[in-house]
């Protein structure tokens, strides 16, 4: 539910052994340049503030996190961390590898992580990844009250009482001790996310400069960022860890929307995907389609119901009716071919631990059952239009026009699309009078991330902010999962929580994203990150 936060820089790399194939290949002269696309909306390269797939994928080669994720299984493995352990899932001890440095020779030690986390968690800094630290002890004391205007200027109305997270303790230069508010078995899984990257002291001293010219600890150094035009990065020669690709330079050109496809066809950039109308031409071109890579994505688009409005949205039969009236497969095939797959679960199947297909019984297209369910719910007021609220995005407008058509055709409910630029503000203010298009982009690979942040609130009276959903069983199962002794037990508990959502039909899953990329013949071993959909730069080879 945060398109703006298209989060999750879980761009990962297979373990060196599987990834680079041992090193007996001599391809790649090491001088090659990769030319890629960057969205024009990217406004920062500060890890604490980067939460869209574009800057996350850039930072993935500029920074190294404590853990990285296996591209196939999405399981985390230690990278900058030597060891991460906890006896009770509340107090975590993180050992950091010795001898690592930033690109300016500062050491990458416990202090480097602590300063980044404290900066991100401090409310008035208004960092995009602030909310990741809410599980850490001392988070609440650091928030205070503040307002941020459109320019990013912050006005503090109440000063926070603390400047540092009381739960983050630097034991010695290589050891960090983190105390959480309560047990959370998935904490180690979160640590590879962009928001948990370390920063150098020099960066903290001049945040402004650092947000355009980051000082990383990864295999690439940012050379120059001409904002709105282009971004270039060169290989950092002193990189001491293993995961580094063969090419020496990356050039990103900034585009808005789908406009990079023409330049890709002209050979000016190395990887791109076509706009919907050109999809058919692209896949039927034998040359182009031989250079296409597909992979499952992780983002879920779904229909949210304003249950706080009461009838008919709070009626489970009504929600079932809407869900069963949507012909997911045909809509995707006709409107956005190749970019999505129909969803029948709330957690992406096989993409993250605990995700299985088919948990949503009423996500199958069945117009007759839909009509019956609507009748059971008491029908829809005649001549009243069902408003579908959504953000201003051509792709989701296209999908949800078709969703509305499906509802109109199969249930006889006339509809109207309401694309609004203030989608997120209006939704959290409960300003919606009809169903809404929502999107959830997971931040870290764990099924809990699809459930608790979206539907849990702990507020039996009002329900969660966005939909007004509340179910005590659901909340209890999430808490049991958080408190579980190991990750596997936790995942099972979260799966049970998903079943509660299914019986409540708390929302209607519509589609999971599918990652597709066409690449030029210069590239080899193109693997897509399941979370961001971007090319995994560390695995890429250039001929």
């Amino acid at each position, binding site marked *: 539910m945060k398109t703006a936060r298209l989060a999750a820089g879980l761009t990962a790399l297979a373990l060196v052994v599987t990834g680079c194939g041992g090193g007996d290949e001599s391809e790649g002269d090491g001088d090659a340049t990769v030319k890629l696309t960057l969205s024009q909306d990217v406004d920062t390269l500060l890890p604490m503030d980067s939460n869209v797939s574009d800057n996350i994928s850039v930072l993935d080669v500029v920074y190294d996190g404590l853990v990285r994720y296996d591209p196939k299984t999405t399981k985390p493995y230690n990278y900058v961390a030597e060891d991460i352990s906890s006896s009770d899932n509340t107090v975590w001890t993180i050992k950091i590898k010795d001898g690592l440095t930033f690109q300016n020779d500062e050491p990458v030690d416990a202090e480097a992580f602590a300063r980044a986390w404290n900066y991100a968690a401090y409310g008035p800094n208004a960092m995009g990844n602030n909310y990741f630290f809410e599980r850490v002890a001392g988070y609440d004391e650091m928030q205070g009250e503040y307002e941020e205007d459109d320019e990013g200027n912050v006005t503090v109305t109440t000063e926070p009482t603390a400047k540092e997270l009381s739960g983050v303790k630097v034991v010695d230069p290589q050891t960090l001790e983190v105390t959480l508010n309560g047990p959370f078995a998935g904490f180690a899984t979160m640590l590879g996310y962009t928001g948990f990257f370390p920063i150098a002291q020099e960066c903290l001293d001049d945040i402004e400069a650092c947000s355009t010219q980051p000082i990383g600890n990864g295999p690439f150094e940012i050379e120059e960022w001409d904002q709105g035009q282009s971004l270039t990065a060169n290989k950092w020669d002193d990189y001491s860890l293993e995961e580094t690709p063969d090419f020496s330079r990356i050039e990103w050109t900034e585009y808005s929307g789908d406009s990079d496809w023409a330049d890709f066809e002209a050979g000016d950039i190395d990887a791109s995907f076509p*706009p919907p*109308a050109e999809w*058919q031409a692209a896949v039927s071109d034998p040359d182009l389609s031989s250079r296409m890579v597909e992979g499952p994505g992780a983002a879920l688009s779904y229909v949210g119901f304003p249950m706080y409005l009461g009838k008919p949205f709070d009626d489970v039969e009504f929600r079932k009716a809407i869900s069963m009236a949507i*012909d997911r497969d045909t809509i995707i095939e*006709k*409107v956005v071919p190749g970019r999505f797959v129909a969803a029948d679960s709330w957690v992406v199947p096989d993409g993250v631990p605990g995700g299985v297909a088919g948990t949503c019984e009423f996500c199958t297209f069945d117009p007759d059952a839909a009509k019956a369910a609507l009748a059971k719910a008491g029908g829809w007021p005649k001549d009243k239009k069902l408003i579908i609220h959504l953000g201003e995005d051509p792709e989701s407008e296209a999908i949800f026009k*078709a969703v509305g*058509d499906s509802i109109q055709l199969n249930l006889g409910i006339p509809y*109207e699309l309401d694309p609004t630029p203030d989608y997120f503000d209006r939704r959290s203010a409960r300003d919606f009078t009809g169903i809404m298009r929502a999107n959830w982009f997971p931040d870290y690979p764990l099924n809990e991330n699809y459930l608790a942040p979206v539907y849990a609130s702990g507020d039996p009276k009002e329900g969660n902010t966005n939909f007004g959903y509340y179910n005590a069983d659901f909340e209890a199962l999430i808490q049991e999962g958080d408190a579980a002794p190991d990750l596997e037990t936790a995942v099972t508990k979260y799966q049970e929580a998903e079943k509660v959502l299914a019986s409540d039909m708390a929302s209607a899953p519509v589609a999971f994203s599918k990652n597709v990329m066409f690449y030029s013949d210069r590239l080899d071993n193109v693997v897509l990150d399941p979370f961001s959909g971007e090319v995994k730069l560390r695995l890429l080879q250039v001929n």
Partner: protein
Amino acid sequence: MSDPSVSALIAEETQSGVPSRSLWSEAFRTLRRRPDVILATIVAVFFLLVALFPFLFTSKDPQRCDIAESRLPPQWFGGEHPFGTNAYGCDVLAQLVHGTRPSLLLAFIVVGVSVLIGVTLGTVSGYYLGIVDAVVSRIVEVFLVIPLLLAALLLLSLFRNIDLGDGPVSTIAQPAIVLTMFAWMGYTRYVRASVLETKNLDYVTAARVLGASDLRIMVRHVLPNAIGTVTALVPTAIAAVIGTEAVLAFLGIGVRPPAVSWGIMIEEGSQWFTGGSEYLLLFPLGCLMATVLAFVVIGDNLRDALDPKLK
């Protein structure tokens, strides 16, 4: 003094009646003899009929879209979807037919209101001159120097979130207001110029001497002379507005969905042109071009026929 030839001349002049009537009937006679005008009129009347009585041409609801029938090619007459269906499975013929009304209604409203404003302001400023003329002329100049597309883009995107409802008029209200704002200046100038020319003619002076009020002089004696030039501009202006509407819809800020207009259809169709469904673009584009061409031809000929300077 009773030269027979002079009195015969006078008699002939009075016989042909009020000068304006002869102008109109003569124009009509000229136009009637031109095949291109007749053809253009048939096309224009046809589309007017489509706009007025859409149900005569299709029985389908343009909003009823079945995604399972997406992008069916044209089945021509006899098929379920004579002109095929679009990407969402909506019937193209039904959309074309129902899209005619917003396009034409917008054009007629914009031109009608502009002519009204232009004639009023032009007459008043030309007749009274002085401070009234100075103010009107400056306003005209201000509006003339602002490029229409820039202003339309700016205003429509500024106010695109204001919802006026979804009646047939309210969906086109915003583009109608904006286009009218930038369409009235031409008429004002034309009318002002002809009023300046006419108001010092002898018969106007005579009327004034006889004690006619300003209003009567303007309406009965000055305006009939000026209206000819303005009328000749109207069909061309209608064509221009239809074209501009398509441009605005193409940019996503014209007539708003759920209303369908040709511009919106062209915009949607253009995406699929290279994707093997070129008919999605060609049908609305064809209708748009036929209508615009028809009105331009009528306008051109009408001007030739009505403007005494071109004779």
